[in-house]
Structure formats: structure tokens, C-alpha cells
């Protein structure tokens, strides 16, 4: 197996994996989407009744949005996640009561008129847990409205709820094998025009597949070519795999965690199999 890393930024990764098969890469894709844990707000407590400010002015604890919408919006805010630092709440030594090693508490206190942003979530405790993507609008408060909530984030998995999905836009494509039969090609090159990815280029009197790595097997050129001079086939042993993260974790960490989860599973399988003998 050969891996070429085309891009690896904190939020985005693109790899070309050769000598593999789609099943394998799909396992990674599924794991990073559904199994890699991340922190997300799971519990929001709203203060009901009047909210006082310093000058003893009373605000109504109401907003244009219903509380469940506000909490749902909060739950989708990406929380910076360091997987080393947190345990699953149910598996934590605190027995699920909630402690700094399994939960993050945030408080949010804002008085209208204003827009409440994700950055207004104040972590109780360490400052590095502050929301990085701090301009996600949560709700717009009108005059005399206020929002006072305590939100608890905990670790979860994408298969349980989409808010615990660290990965977005994970997909891959087969590499393309483009064969141009120069004998048949009449160099009309309407195929080059229709190609949405500009794979084919007219090179003098000849058609050339200049960027075969860009081809997504859409077959436009094959359908376009009346003389059947082009043949495009997908190569399932070479895949271009890419994904992004929502910003709560680095793409590399997500991938590594995904692999370790897979590894763990196979390890368990191996152990159980060896126990059979």
C-alpha cells in the first residue's frame, strides 16, 4: 500500500491510497464519520424566570427561538476536543456524574438586544476550551430579552448523533484509467469541451489526457465520442480519499484515532479468535 498525502491541514485532508481496495478505505471513512469521538454539548440548562443584570434591571428569559432550538443550535457548535484529556462520561471514573475529565461546562449569559454567538459560551475552567469558531450565530435577542444557560459538553460518537460527527464531506473516488485510441480519434475534441474536470486536452492534432488524476469517471467524454476512441475505467485499487473536519479536531488526529479504533477492533477480534483454540 502506498499513501500520498496531497493535503493535510488542520481541517482538511486529501490522500491518494494505492494498492488498496475500496472496502478498506471505506472502513476508514465509516470509522471517522461514525466512530471517532468528539465533544459536543449534550445538556443545556436554561434559567427560567426573570434574569437580573447588575443594575437590577429584569430581563425576560425568552428568545424568538424555542429553548429546544437554542439547545440544538448549541449542540452543533464544534467544541475543541482533545481526546487524550476526556473519557466517555459513562466510562469515567466519576461514574457518570460529570467531572472535569469527562465533561466541559459552559455558561452563556447575554442580554438583549444583541446576537448571541458561539463565542459567547464561556468554558467553566480552562480557557483553552473556548470555542474556536466563535462567530456562529445562535439566536438574536430583542430588547428586554436575555439568555442565561449552562451547557455541558461530553464525548460521543457520530453514530449516536450527528453533533458528535467530527468529520464532514468524507468521500473518495477511484482513479481513472483513460485509454485513447489514437487510431480511431478524429481529434474533433468535443470530448475535451464537455469534460467538466478539464482532464482531456487537445494537443495539436491529438487528444491527450493531461490530468487523469482529476477524472471522476463521469464518462461524458465516452458518451460524447462518436467514434468510440476513449475508454475510461475506474481503478478500484487506487483511491483518492479526502475529508474535512468541523474544526473540533485536526484532520490528522481524526484519521489516527479512526485507525486506532479499527486497530482496536481487529485486535479484539484476534484475541477472541485466539481464545477459541
Amino acid at each position, binding site marked *: 500500500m502506498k499513501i500520498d498525502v496531497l493535503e493535510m491541514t488542520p481541517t482538511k485532508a486529501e490522500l491518494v491510497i494505492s494498492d488498496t481496495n*475500496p472496502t478498506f478505505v471505506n472502513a476508514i471513512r465509516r470509522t471517522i464519520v*461514525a466512530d471517532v469521538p468528539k465533544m459536543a454539548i449534550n445538556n443545556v440548562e436554561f434559567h427560567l424566570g426573570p434574569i437580573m443584570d447588575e443594575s437590577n434591571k429584569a430581563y425576560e428569559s425568552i428568545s424568538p427561538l424555542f429553548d429546544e*432550538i437554542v439547545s440544538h443550535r448549541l449542540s452543533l457548535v464544534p467544541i475543541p476536543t482533545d481526546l487524550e484529556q476526556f473519557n466517555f462520561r459513562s466510562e469515567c471514573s466519576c461514574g457518570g456524574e460529570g467531572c472535569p475529565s469527562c465533561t466541559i461546562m459552559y455558561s452563556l449569559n447575554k442580554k438583549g438586544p444583541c446576537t448571541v454567538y458561539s463565542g459567547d459560551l464561556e468554558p467553566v475552567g480552562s480557557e483553552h476550551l473556548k470555542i474556536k469558531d466563535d462567530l456562529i450565530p445562535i439566536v438574536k435577542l430583542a430588547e428586554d430579552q436575555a439568555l442565561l444557560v449552562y451547557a455541558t459538553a461530553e464525548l460521543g460518537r457520530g453514530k449516536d448523533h*450527528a453533533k458528535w460527527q467530527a468529520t464532514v464531506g468524507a*468521500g473518495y473516488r477511484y482513479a481513472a484509467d483513460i485509454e485513447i485510441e489514437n487510431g480511431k480519434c478524429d481529434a474533433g475534441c468535443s470530448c475535451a469541451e464537455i469534460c*467538466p474536470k478539464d482532464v482531456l486536452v487537445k494537443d495539436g492534432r491529438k487528444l491527450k489526457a493531461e490530468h487523469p488524476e482529476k477524472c471522476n469517471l463521469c464518462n461524458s467524454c465516452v458518451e460524447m465520442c462518436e467514434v468510440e476512441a476513449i475508454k475510461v475505467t475506474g481503478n478500484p485499487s487506487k483511491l483518492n480519499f479526502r475529508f474535512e473536519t468541523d474544526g473540533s479536531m485536526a484532520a490528522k488526529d481524526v484519521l489516527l484515532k479512526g485507525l486506532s479504533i479499527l486497530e482496536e477492533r481487529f485486535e479484539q477480534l484476534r484475541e477472541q479468535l485466539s481464545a477459541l483454540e
Partner: protein
Amino acid sequence: MRELVETYFRERSIVNHHIASYNDFLPTLDHPNSRMQKIVDNVRASPDESYRGVIRLDPDRTEGKIIEIRLGRKRDEKTGLVDSNARPTISVGRPVIKEANGATHALYPMEGRLRNLNYSAPIYLEFTVVEDGIEREPEKVHIGSLPVMVKSKKCNLHRDNLDLDREPTDEELEKFLAMMGEDLCDPGGYFIIGGTERALISLEDLAPNRVMVELNERYGTSLHVAKVFSQKEGYRALTLMEKKKDGVLVVSVPAASGQIPLIVLMKALGMESDEEIYRAIVSDPQMANIVYANIEECQNKKLYPPNGIFTTEDAILYLERKFATGQAKEYRAKKVESIIDRSLLPHLGDTPDVRLKKAIFLGRVAKTILEMELGKRKEDDKDHYANKRLKLAGDLMEDLFRVALTNLIKDLKYQLERGYTRKKGLRISSAIRPDLLTHRLLHAFATGNWVGGRAGVSQLLDRTSNMSALSHLRRVTSPLTRSQPHFEARDLHPTQWGRLCPNETPEGQNCGLVKNCALIVDVSEGTDEKEIIWLLRDLGVREVSEHQTTETRVYTNGDLIGLHDKPRELVEEIRQRRRSGLLSSEVNIRFDLNMNEIIINCDEGRLRRPLLVVRNGSTLLTRKHLEEMHSAKAKWSDLIREGVVEWVDAEEEEDSYIAPMAYNPPEECEHCNKVLSVMDVDWRNPGEVGKVSLECKSCGGLMQTESLLMEDHTHLETDPMVILGVCSAVVPYPEHNSSPRVTMGSGMAKQSLGLSSSNYRIRPDTRSHVLHYPQKPLVTTKPMEFVSFDRRPAGQNFVVAILSYQGYNMEDAVIMNKSSVERALGRSTFMRTYRAEERRYPGGQEDHFEIPSPDVRGARADLSYSSLGEDGLISPETRVEGGDVLIGKTSPPRFLEEEADFLTPQKRRETSVTVRPGEKGWVDSVMLTESENGSRLVKVKVRDERTPELGDKFASRHGQKGVVGLLVDQQDMPFTEDGVVPDLLINPHAVPSRMTVAHVLEMIGGKVGSMEGRIIDGTPFSGEREEALRAALVENGFKHNGKEVMYDGITGRMIEAEIFIGVIYYQKLHHMVSGKLHVRSRGPVQILTRQPTEGRSRQGGLRFGEMERDCLIGHGAAMVIRDRLLDESDGTLQYVCGNSNCGHIAILDRRGSFRCPVCGNNSKIYQVQTSYAFKLLLDELLSLGVVMRLQLEDLK
């Protein structure tokens, strides 16, 4: 031309027709001759009185004094006419509320909605008492309250009623509306009655006062019949004339049974001379014989003894004998008088001096029949829109108010006469009963039962979404019964083009009978026809002396006015006058070449549509107009005034040659090769003859193309999209769809959830929905702007792939991405408002909001009241479920005499309000206020979040509906190379047979829109071209046909077929599983029969009916039948008296001993199992005096 449509909507709102019609009804300072005033001017205490607008008291009851009370405006002594500009006597205030403590203050709609009030304003009427000829000072008296249409001139939200000393700016108005708790996009046009919003549905009716001929196929022979629906001031009468088999023309008059020979009737009306009769009928020598025969028939002594009918006296005598045989002479005379004056053709008048006019009219009717028989005239088309009139809110109010006012005046007259004493004099304010009028009006509004026996006129405004509300306000219903077929009436008629939407109609029994207005329509308000008649006389129309003529007959509003010899010139002259503003734009004229008739209409209720005027092959619209429209300076009313655009009714349209468009834009721009749609070019030279010069909007290059306007065109269509109604117009590219799918699409737009109003948090609607993340569609249409769909959307843009997925989207099911759902795709909130009032009962007792104490009858366990506050009310944000108490309430005992024990006070009843069974949610708000009669009123709103689940219904805008069949985890869904996972999977079989090409097109459009970050224009008939969208796909790296390579999310392998994937607007429809799901194991039973209750709302069972029972009999499954029909239904154990001559039902008394209450037997009592329904039958028969004795025997 979209500019025109924009210009129109800049000036008029989408419900302008209702508001304008209601404003015409209201008396305001700038509108002295309002319909309300006209009603007052013409009011009569009883139909036999000849004087109008005046009450004359009976001198016998007023000690001989002659007392007249004038309510209407003063009439001219000579002509008896009212000066239409005289000061009105009736006036309407602004909506106010009179509290129980007597205080009054201005009422705004939101307070009305919240407090279950009526949004109504006081009506004042000036009474002028004339006592023995001496006129007293007028007295202004409050006569009742008038429901006020929201946003009408009298509405407190109207721009003019802001109590500023100047015209408020738009921002000020918006700020004010927001302060009053209103939605800025609310169109108004409805009423608020008892806190509920009620819309008046426009009625479509046959045009009154016209002669309509038709062929009745009866018993194999065809009968020629002419009908006249007379209508005047709410009084309707149908006069029918037919030619019998023997050639006799007979007339049927309402209130007179049987038929009257035409000639007799004409003679009775004073047309004595046979020659005159002949002239009044015959228009063709071929008819002469029939008329002669008819005249001679009347002279038959045997048929009309003693001498035949020659004179008016003869005829009247004949009628007297026919309709009032054996009565006293005066009575007979009166009866005949009432028939010929009031029942016959009342639209011509109800006094003896119009009798000759009626005779002439009858002659004309006969002429029409004979003409049809001779084949010179065709049967009138009843479904032609020229023969239809619409009754809008103002017209309906007029009918209702007239009846209510007549009642009030009748009562006032009675009260005045009864209570009159010379000493006290007349006190109108104390004799009048304003409640009489108010209740009459409110009752009609609250029940929808209008005067004239029409039901369903006022309906609860549909607030499911903004579109449904707008569509509801533009609805037109036909009075035809829905049970009969009426195929012709349901068919789309060519004259409905541009007036009524061809697609927006319900499916099923109301199809084609309930219609909706097209985007731009105008309902005529009517002008005075006298002006036109004067004008016609000036233009050389001369009186009709006889019908045998080659000259053109001129009709106004169905009345024959005269003859003219140069019809073309006359029509042209009148049109020119109208276009230049010399004549009201309400007037429409048509020259019917076949019949050689000129038909002029200026009555109310004609549904008209705008057309651009074309003369000599060019429009009157010029480049200057277009530019003014672009810069939003042009005004629609100016265009009408200048005669550039005119309103054309269905009659005039028959005489027009209308070009659908002025030019076809070239396929591609000559300069930049862009694929051109109608919207991509700008017309540089409208108003010029010859080639059309076009400017490409993207490159600015000029092109020439052929003009489609010919020399003989009279008009040009404004914009093709205006033929559609509001709901069909939000379907993008409807011209690419099969028609039934557009109908279904517009039907479903009304069921879609969205942001129905921005004030949803304070509105106290009984049921309402709000979609959490409503989106503006990526593929929009122009009309969406005018119906504020972009600000009150109802749906979301879904990424949709067309493929099957393990078969879970078979038969119109859809598969949804579970993760998308978790990200709040298609999530909505359902809100239900529960209400309770502390009612007062006669005897001083009242309801109480409180936590019922345990000694209250029917009190629940303490736990049930645990979430209530001390005041008996629940607090907001409490989680509640079916059966939980929201409002603790106790009521006084139902029957005061129930318990004879005077020492202990009677127990109060528990009447708490609980959450409906099966529903749940959070308490959203609790409103405590006071109702109109001063008792406390509480409304509790409970909201429930509804995430899409299996069985919820979703639909695109193309009639492609489906229910969720499976929610799939994101990782299992197919994905593209970019990692795009569809939100929704629909089955490929959903498309081909339904031919919803626009659905496919919208998916491509949505894909382009989401890639380029722009809105795609999918306006009907002028949207972005398919070729352009396909090219844009390629530019953005997609295959030109929208298909993509996808990979199976489970196996990871590439899916062999290319999958069509795109972005399309989907709507969540309000049919959700959580509102329908229903199970029952044990549950409530009916008291009477002890059988399980019926219906979901009563936790009922599902009926095990006859056919189901038959099935079990067929199977021989006796025990199952016993189980279903007896044990699980109303099986009961009864004790039966075994006494063979008694056989009644016995009882087990309190001491535990058996006894037959009939024969007293207490030893031979047996237990029998039977259904309770059988026991009930025994009892019911007993009550009829029939004894059914049960004879018991041992089983063998």
C-alpha cells in the same frame, strides 16, 4: 413583461380585491356614496312600502301625529333621487372594545385575537325626525357594530389611521405594525370574530338581469328556454320563458304557480295593442307566424272565457282568476299586482309605472327564444366568464347588512309605535336595539351561514403557511352543488385564461368548482350606467321602435338601449374615450358581429385582466414607460389612465385579438453566445413598428428580431406568468410539467409547513406549525416576491439523489439521511392552544381557576395537579403529556336541585383542561386576560418538537409527494467523490410516468445555484433556459446531465449506474405520523351502548364491521367472532327472570339478592351473557310498549 407585474404589485397588494371591495362598502369622508349609505337610502321597514330611507309611523298609534323619521339622505322632491355627493347619514367609527366595566379603548387586531374579541367598529346613523312637517335636529345614534376587515380603511392598522398629522413613512408604518404585534407580511383582508380570523370567500354567480337562452333536452324533445335572473338590492327572482310544443310562449314567474301565456302577460302589463306586441317581439319575418299564432291563441274564447283576452282588463281578470280564485276582489287585485310588480322581473322596478318596460323586456326575451329557434342565435354559454359575476367581501357585507338593517328598522318602528306617548315624545336612542344588528352580523360571520341560505361563506382563515392564507383569500367558489356532476361547469373554460388559475383547484369532489384568482385580476366595482346611456345618445344611438332592422342593437348591462348604424365606429369611439380617461375605465365594450350587437358592461363583479393596448402593430407602451418601470417610478394607475394598459373583461376579450408575446428572443446572443431566455434581453424599442431591437443583458450587444405583433392585433399579453394563481406560481418551470402535477403541487403548497407568520410566538392559534429552518428556494419564481414567499418560506433545499436504496423508497416512499435529520432537516414545532374561561352562570355562581380540592367531584389525584401554580395555572417550559392538567378549574354543580340536603353545600365539579391524549410537549406560554364580559380568560400554548420520523410526508413543488420509509445513518448512505451525502433518496420510478420534468430541471437548477451561490430564476414561461443550466453544471465541474458517480456507503464500491443528484426544494407537509398514530387496547366506551368509542380523538377502537365479520364466518372462526363482537366490545352479564310468563331483566340488589323488578320473583333468576346493545334494544322496545320476553332453556 415582468416590469409591468412589478409595477402592479408596487401599488396593489395580493388581496387588494377584498380590501378594495370592502372599502367601497364602508362610508368614509372621501367616499360619500358608499354601498352602506346606498342601503340606508333605500331601506324599507317592510317590502310593501313605497317610500325608501324613511320610517313613517302609523298615525293610529301616535295619537294622530304624522311622524316621519328620515335615515337616508334627503331625496329631491321632484325626481325622488338622492344626490350621490350629499353628506352621508351613516358613519362607521374605528374598532373599539367596550370592556365589562364600561371603559372603551381602541382595539387592535392582536388584542382581538388574544382576547377572543370581535374586531368591530360602531356604526352611527343620523335620524331626522319630521313631526307634522316640522324637521327636528338630526340625532346621531349608535345602531350596532360592524366587523372590520383588517387593513381596510377603517382598520386601526391602516396607514391613514396612525394618528399622525402627516402620512407615515414606510418605516414608521412597519415599526407601528411590529409594535402592535403584527406580521409585516400579513396581507389583511380577513375579519376577526371571537378571536378567530375569518375570510369571506368570493362567490361566483351567474350574471343577473341578463337574458340567457338554452336548449333543454327533455323527454326526447328539445325545449327552447330563456331565463332571466333578476336581482335588485339582494332580492333575487328567476323569470323563465319557454316555447311549448304547440308553439305557445309561456312565462313562469316566482311566487305564481303555473305558467302564464306571454301575450296575456304582456297585455296585463298594459301592452294592449297587438301591433305593439308584434313589434316588440318580431325581428325576422320568419317569426311572424309564431307571434300571430300566439296572439290568436289569446283570443280563443274557449280557452280564455268569456270572450278571449283583448284588453289589459281582460288579462288582469284572467290572472286574478288563475292565481286567486274565489278570493275577495281587493285581495285578488293585490295578489296580481304583487305578481306583476314585485315577482316579475324585479330588476326593472317594482312600481306600476314600469309595467310597460317589463312588457317590452318580455318581448325581447321572446324574440331571443325565437331567434334561437330559427338558428340565428346560439345557446348562451353559461360557463362563459362574461356571464359570471364575482361577489367579494364588500358585496357579501352589503347583502348581510341590508337584511340586518331592515330587521333593525322594522324593530325600531315597532318599538317607537308601541312606546309612543305624546308626553315623552320620540326618543330614538332608547328605542333602538343595536344588539339586534350586531348579533345578526356576528352570527353570520361566526357560523358562515349568510343571508340567502348560503353556508360556508365565512371560513376560518387557513394559516398553515403564508401561501395557504393568501390562496384562501383569493379563493372563488361556485354555488353549484358538489354532489352533481356538472361536467361543463368544472371544465376549464377558455375565458378563464388570465382570470382564474388553470391549475389551482382541489382534487376530488370540488374539482373545478372551487377556483382561485390568477395573479393579476381586478373585479369591477361598477359605475353608473346612466352616464353611458347619455353618451350613447350623444353618439347617435336612437331608440328602438321595432326589432325588424338591420341596424346594430346596443345593450348596456343587458338592457337594450337602442340602435346604431355604424357599430365599428361607435365601439372605437367608446374605447378611445375610455383610454383617454373621458370614460370610466370600468366600462367594457364588445361588438358581436354574428349577432350584430354591441354589448357594453359597467356593472360590478366582472373579473377582468390587464392587457397592453396595441394599435397598428405596436404597443402604446414605449421605452420611456419601460425605463420608468425599471427605476420604480412608474405607477400602475398612470398606465391605466394613459390607456397603455387596460382592464378587459371576458366579454370584451371576445372582440380582441391578443398577441401572447411581442417577440421571440433569439436562441443565443449574437455577440456573447449566451443562451438567451426572455429575461436575458431588454426590449429597446417598444411602441415602434417594425423589427424588435433587443439588448443582451449580459454583454450589452444589440440584436434585431421579428416582431410578432401584426396590424390586426388589438392587445398584447402583459406577462404569461400572470395566468397562474398564487400557489401554481410558486412551482418553478411549471410549463415543463404535466398539468395534474402542477395542480397537485399547488395543492400541497397549502399543506406545507414553514414560517406562516413572524409573530408565531404571540399568536394564539388553536393549531399552528412552524418549520425550524425555513429556507428560500434556490430555484425561485418571480411571483414569489409578490406573495412574500422569500420572506415567509415553507420548505428547505434538500440534496436529493434519484436511486433506489434497498427498496425502502418503493411506491413513493422516501429515504432520509438520519444525520441530516439530526442536524434539524425538516424539523418543525407544533403548537396547540388550550383555552378556559371563568364563566359566570345564572344564579351568581362562576367557574374558578384553582387546584381542585379533594372534595370536588371528579377531582384527580394530587399528583396530577403538582405542576400547577397556586392560581391553578401551569407555568411555562413545563414538560406535559397527554392527560396532564394545564388549567385547574372547578365549576358549579350542573343541577342546583341535585341534592336535597340544604346543610352541606353542593359539591363543585372538576372541569380542568388537560392535554389531548396522545399529544405532548412543553408549555410555551400562559396568557391570562379578561374576556369581553369581564371574566378571566386563560390560554395555554403547548408546543411539541417534531423531528421527521418514519411516515412523515414530504413533497417537492411538483406534486411529487412521499412518506419517509427509512432513516439511514450517514455512513451507510451513498456518497459522491466530494463526500456529498444526499438528504433524501427518491425512487426513479417516481418520474417517468408522471412526467414531472420540472422536478428534474429544478434539481439541476438547484445544483447550479448552490455551486454558484445564486438564486436560479424558474419563473413560469420565462425561467432560465435548460441549456444555460447544463452549461453551468459543466463549468462547475459536474457532468452536463446532472448525474454523478456515487459510491455505496456500506460496501464502499462504486455504484455501477450513474446517479442523478441535485438540490431541490422540499416541503414538509402537515400530515405527520405523530398526529395520526393511534392504538387502543382498553379504552373508553360509549355510555349508551357500552361499545368502544369511535375516532382517534376519543381513543376509539377500529370498527370490526360487517364485512370483516362475514370473513370470519367464512372461516368458521366462531371464537374469534365471539372475541371481537362480544368479549372485546359490549359483552355483559345480565340477570334474567326465569319466570316463563315474565322474562324481564332481573337485578342484583344492594343487599346481594336477586329479584325480578317486574314480577317480584326472586328464586328463578339466571345469569345470561349477551351484548349490551341487545339489552338496550329490550329497553327501547319496552319504552314503545313492546315487551320482549326472554324464555330461558338449558343448553341441550
